């Protein structure tokens, strides 16, 4: 079936799409989604390589990455809500109190 190279290529594609999204989009929620995509590209590469090398350590790492990413998004959503409650607008370009 598909070799490890296929999965690594897919992981790279996901990573590139995610990175492009973070750099071009201006909605924090969409940016989070793109960052999640980058995390998952790392996860995919880890799982594929773990399977290819016949080791369990990569699989173990992936579980922790998934949990950590969820925690990160939870805090992110909390901060977005805090901004939304005061500003009613969370576009990154409009957040420009800090400059210099």
């Amino acid at each position, binding site marked *: *079936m*598909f*070799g490890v190279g296929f999965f690594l290529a897919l992981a790279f594609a996901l990573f590139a799409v995610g990175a492009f999204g973070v750099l071009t989009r201006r909605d924090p929620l969409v940016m989070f989604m793109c960052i999640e995509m980058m995390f998952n590209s790392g996860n995919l590469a880890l799982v594929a390589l773990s399977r290819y090398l016949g080791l369990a350590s990569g699989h173990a790492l992936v*579980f922790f990455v*998934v*949990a950590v990413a*969820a*925690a990160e*998004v*939870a805090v992110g*959503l*909390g901060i*977005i*809500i805090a901004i*939304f*409650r005061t500003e009613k607008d969370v576009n990154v370009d409009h957040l420009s109190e800090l400059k210099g």
Partner: protein
Amino acid sequence: MAFTVTVMGLLIFAAAVAANFAGMILTSTILGPKRRNSVKDQPFECGSLPVGPTHTRFHIRFYLTAILFLIFDIEVVFLYPFITILRPELGVTGLWIMGAFLAVLVFGLAYEWRRGGMEWD
């Protein structure tokens, strides 16, 4: 052998889908009449007129529920591999370690409850 067949099949399918798409769009742009009017620019909902704005905002409380769900939902990624190797490998020690992990979660739940995270109003 099996690899080549599957990949070839997939590639042919992908090419066919792309060709089909491109064909349909191209044909309709070349052949279709191009007259714009106000009726054409309206959104189409099975013939009936659209009702209300399309972008409805959910109440911000849903976000809090979503955040809390997210945290407690993810614990399952640790529970699932744990139960699959509990009997053959981990034994009683593993049970204690997982008990500690779940205790932390229950503690978090109690904290959330106490601070009013579960109250809707």
